[in-house]
């Protein structure tokens, strides 16, 4: 399987779990319980598929499961080279939290005491998702925007400082 195809599968999986989580979160009310159930099981299936794909994927491929490590994070902090370690940390945390929310929801059908933990984990997972989106937006879009802002500032401030220096 080519890396390009693996990336395509990863994108499709990302859309699948994102869409399923969104539907499950929005339909958490009692009036749409059957839809919530369906979307929740779609999330469980997505997590299971991702774990299986991660185990079966060749080493070094994009479908491999994220493996965050403190050593890599320290090395990145020291020299700033390579991929930002927060990508792997966020991916692992999201898989864990969203998976836990989905599995606890599925089990809550039989074990009613799991309903409150399921609700709490779901709320927590939403904040992890918000953090993930904010981080990725900053890394891909925010950095560029920040670069433009600093470039504009240096362009506008440079003539002013040179005038002051000439005085």
């Amino acid at each position, binding site marked *: 399987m080519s890396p390009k195809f693996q990336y395509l599968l990863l*994108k*499709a999986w*990302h*859309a*699948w779990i*994102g*869409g*399923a989580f*969104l*539907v499950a979160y929005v*339909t*958490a*009310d*009692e*009036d*749409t*319980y*059957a*839809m*919530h*159930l*369906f*979307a929740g099981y*779609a999330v469980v299936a997505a997590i299971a598929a991702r774990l299986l794909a991660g185990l079966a994927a060749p080493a070094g491929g994009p479908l491999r499961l994220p493996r965050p490590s403190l050593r890599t994070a320290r090395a990145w902090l020291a020299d700033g080279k390579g991929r930002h370690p927060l990508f792997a940390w966020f991916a692992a945390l999201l898989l864990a939290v969203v998976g836990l929310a989905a599995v606890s929801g599925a089990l*809550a*059908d039989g074990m*009613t005491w799991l*309903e*409150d933990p*399921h*609700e709490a984990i*779901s709320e927590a997972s939403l904040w992890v998702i918000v953090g993930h989106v904010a981080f*990725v*937006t900053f890394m*891909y*879009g925010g950095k560029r925007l920040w670069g433009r802002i600093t470039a504009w500032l240096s362009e506008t401030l440079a003539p002013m400082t040179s005038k002051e220096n000439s005085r």
Partner: protein
Amino acid sequence: MLGKMIIHGLVAATVIGAAAAVYAQTRNDGYASPAPSQVSRAASPGKAADDGYMRPTGYRSHERDDDDHEHGFRRGHERRDRVHSDHKRGHDRD
């Protein structure tokens, strides 16, 4: 790239939402919401009189007033049993 990912996610949400809606309809005999099966006239002679008002029924209906506005999730999960028991009751009546 980010915009594309958001669009892909929204398309997936639409597809899953549509499939979930179809599933909900088939499960509830054509109703997107199981609400119509939850309320029924309290017609049994041992309970309240049939005064024309719709009353919620179900084995936990006495608990619902306490935390009705707080625990949407809990009510959702409990509801499955209520809906099933209501369906059963409907079949018994027939």
